[in-house]
């Protein structure tokens, strides 16, 4: 790849990342306020205390995170599929082995 194309692709990728990161940070907002310690309700000998009720903002942020995670996974699976097909195509056409041979042969 030419240098110009490589720099273009790096800059594009870099431009996307901060935007998405900023969106994620916005979802976090401020600190979760401190929550009082949950009192364990001991009804029977083996009763587990629940993790303390989480503040609504934090709960929202966690579900936003989950949605973003799954959305990203679906998108990435799509792109990976394209990339895998590309790699398989190259492999079956024997192009990578041909590319290997050519520079080797062209060396004096």
């Amino acid at each position, binding site marked *: 790849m030419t240098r110009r194309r490589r720099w273009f692709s790096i800059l594009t990728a870099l431009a996307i990342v901060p935007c998405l990161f900023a969106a994620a940070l916005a979802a976090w907002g401020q600190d979760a306020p401190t929550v009082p310690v949950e009192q364990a309700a*001991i009804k029977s000998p*083996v009763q587990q*205390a629940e993790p303390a009720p989480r503040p609504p903002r934090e709960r929202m942020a966690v579900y936003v995170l989950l949605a973003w995670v799954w959305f990203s996974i679906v998108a990435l699976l799509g792109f990976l599929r394209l990339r895998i097909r590309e790699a398989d195509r190259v*492999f079956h056409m024997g192009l990578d082995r041909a590319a290997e041979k050519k520079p080797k042969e062209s060396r004096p």
Partner: protein
Amino acid sequence: MNVVRAWIEERLGLRAVTHFLEKKEVPRHKHTFLYYTGSSILLFLGIQIVTGVLLAFYYQPTLAEANASVVRIMTEMPLGWLIRSVHSWSATFMIAIVFVHLLGIAFTKAYRKPREATWITGVLLLGASLAFGFTGYLLPWDELSLAATKVGTNLPKALPFVGAWLTQVMRAGEDVTGDTLSRFFIVHVSVLPLAIMAFLGVHLFLVQRHGMSGPLAEEKKNVKVPALPFWPNFVFREAAVWLVLLGVLITIAIVAAPGIGPKADMMAPAPEGIKPEWYFLFMFQTLKLFPATILGLNGELFALLLMMVGMGLIAFLPFIDNRPAERKGRIISGLAWAGLAYAVGMSIWSLL
């Protein structure tokens, strides 16, 4: 960029590694999916290390503070409950995939020559993983932890001569106390990580050295199995598998976060309905079934010896199954299926 690459190459000489990875191939057949299990274990191990270190930032491994510090992590620290939940669920996922990996290797007989040493290191890794689970379970110091640890560390007592001593070594004394907690903590965060790194290093080196094993059936037919280049074809597929696993992990961690019970009371009677983590259930149920005495021998000792024989069979499977392609190999496969059915059946029974 190339300048940087050249600088690194001149000093580290990683050409050999990249060259090797470019050439590495993965056989393609109907059991190729099993090749994803190894790296998936690595993924979860990495997650365990990261979340484990983070938990250790606030966890205090003393009798007085252990339970309280876990409660603090879960209630006061931002998203502490999530970190703990991920750590707990990732442990389950990792051990589950370790079992799938072991069964996959066993049933495809990938342990046959020259991969016997790889199998042995794998069994050691299995032991380390289970030890991680066992030691980690005590650390929250709640009632279930204490009960499970008491039962687990009581097992060696049935052995003659060394039994009582072994139990005392595990418990740091006669009973499960604050000393036991300290001991389990340092084993969990220092001894076992070092051990697993050492075993893993040898295991991975051997795997790369011998390459990926192909299916037995193909070998018999003497056909060259079609192969996929490791980079980039297999790696991108692996990335897809990792992504899905991560998604499932974080979803389950959010939706089914574990709670914590009240601080363990060393004087209190054992809580009802205690049971160990799922990967020990079949052993637990086996022990429950054995009567107090068999043929004059202590029933527990009998069960323990049986379990040790079983572990020995698994550990030395490549040497026992030295004729994998022939009738002996098929018989051993059949016995392995029976063993698996037993373990699964016992686990389900113990939950009923």
